[in-house]
């Protein structure tokens, strides 16, 4: 199993540009999450999904959109990039919700918005 994979690893965007961060997991996990990690800060939840076709907002959803058309994929879209979205983005998945199932994280996507 590859686990959780994310692409790209690094991207530079200009203000106002849009892009999609890809996330794929091959563990057949129902639950998937997107976090952002700002320098010196902990992880903050952007969006999460409890299964294909179902998504919900996390702590910091503004400026982002997600979709979950399949169990494997959970892309994160930035429509109008802003400097405040410069961060490292982590995708994660878990087999169930809540604390009984640890979350498995992807390697992260480093995004710089100039």
């Amino acid at each position: 199993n590859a686990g959780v994979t994310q692409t790209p690893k690094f991207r530079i965007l200009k203000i106002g540009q849009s892009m999609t961060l890809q996330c794929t997991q091959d563990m057949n996990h129902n639950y998937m999450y997107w976090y952002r990690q700002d320098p010196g800060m902990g992880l903050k939840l952007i969006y999460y999904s409890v299964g294909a076709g179902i998504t919900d907002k996390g702590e910091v959803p503004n400026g982002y959109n997600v979709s979950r058309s399949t169990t494997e994929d959970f892309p994160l879209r930035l429509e109008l990039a802003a400097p405040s979205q410069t961060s490292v983005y982590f995708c994660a998945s878990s087999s169930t919700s809540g604390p009984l199932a640890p979350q498995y994280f992807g390697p992260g996507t480093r995004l710089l918005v100039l």
Partner: protein
Amino acid sequence: AQKVTQAQTEISVVEKEDVTLDCVYETRDTTYYLFWYKQPPSGELVFLIRRNSFDEQNEISGRYSWNFQKSTSSFNFTITASQVVDSAVYFCALSGPISRDDKIIFGKGTRLHILP
């Protein structure tokens, strides 16, 4: 409200020394779960341990040990005989009861440097 505080932003120790990473949490729940994750320089987060609020027994796994004390709302992590490969950012995290379908709240992390 739930909160996780890792007061130590950055720690440097010489290899083979023991080091303890502090984690203090706040929650109104009687049932909750605590976690530690490791983030090595490669960036990927690695799950280390999960403890539930009813189990205060300390846990040891090789050179790693965890001290959970409800009386002080702390869940500290100790690395014994540290090695350079232990250099990473370590996150403490908190989650509420299963029934509430809670998300995990992460602390800001402690960056640990193990010097050769």
